[in-house]
């Protein structure tokens, strides 16, 4: 885990490799808010999955910024962002797990 001091809060950088039907790799930066919630600063999602239209992924990554890291929260946000898209190789549940797996900073299967 890499800890960087940015502005007046600590931004942590972590990653995870998650195997579902396809492989999802997540690079996550997050920081704690005043209440101690973990908030996404940025997220990059890569993998050998399919997503239509392809631009949905970049949009999702932008929309996830500022999202609190919690299962239900993430799942709802992903469902909303990918509402008009079609994914093969992951769903909102597995993608949420892949992102949250970063917090454990280990390879998750």
């Amino acid at each position, binding site marked *: 885990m890499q800890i960087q001091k940015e502005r007046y809060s600590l931004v942590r950088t972590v990653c995870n*490799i998650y195997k579902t039907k*396809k*492989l999802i*790799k997540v690079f996550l930066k997050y920081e704690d808010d005043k209440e101690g919630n973990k908030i996404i600063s940025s997220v*990059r*999602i*890569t*993998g*050998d*999955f*399919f*997503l*239509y*239209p*392809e631009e949905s*992924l970049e949009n999702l990554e932008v929309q996830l910024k500022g999202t609190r890291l919690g299962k239900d929260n993430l799942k709802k946000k992903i469902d909303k962002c990918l509402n008009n898209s*079609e994914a*093969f190789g992951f769903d909102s549940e597995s993608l949420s797990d892949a992102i949250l797996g970063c917090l454990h900073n280990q*390879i998750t299967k």
Partner: protein
Amino acid sequence: MNKIRLLETEHRSAYYNMALDQALMSTVGDSIPILRIYGWKPCAVSIGYFQSLKEEVDIKKCKKLGIDVVRRITGGGAVLHEHELTYSFITKGYPANIMESYELICEPVVMCLRNLGFNAQFSPLNDIDVDNKKVSGNAQTRRNNILLQHGTILLDVDVDKMFSVLNVPSEKMKDKIIQDVKARVMGLKKTFDEVASELQESFSRKFGAEIFRDDIKTDEEIEAKIFQKYKYSSDDWNYKR
């Protein structure tokens, strides 16, 4: 469809191959569908649209071996293109349902393999297996109501070479991963020309269409050269993720 335009564009570089696919998507318009058959020279690694080049590929090793590296506009995984036939099918008419469209366009590939004597099966979403071993991977994109599906048909496979240039999630597991892949992937041990000939016949029969051989048009070549130079050869594109 009554006709399919056949382009046999020989063995070209990774950058040109991907550039020509995109150029044909922008020029096909209301014209008849295109079946393009080609190979890769020098051999190359292509990664899926959603992959990271640095994560997936040993770029230094590829440079040392003279292997080109390119990002595709389609999703899916990293592929070493060496002893294979690659096809692209570009069309304006296709099923809206993505799974159905994969199955539809993979059907002539399955037919081709069966006519060559193999027990081939479509394996959703995008693979074709022979006796439960993968011989073909396919990937699709849709832009401006035009569909491109391209795929590989393995003629032979060097799994050790593949993993010498592709990164694996766990170095500890590398030997096991290589053994697993060797057990699950196979090449047809047929020549490029044999497969190419049968593939054209299969597309013709499947879609009830007359194949007519054609050459790349000047405007298509110009468009391809632009995409080759400014997109597929560029670090901005290849290192996008």
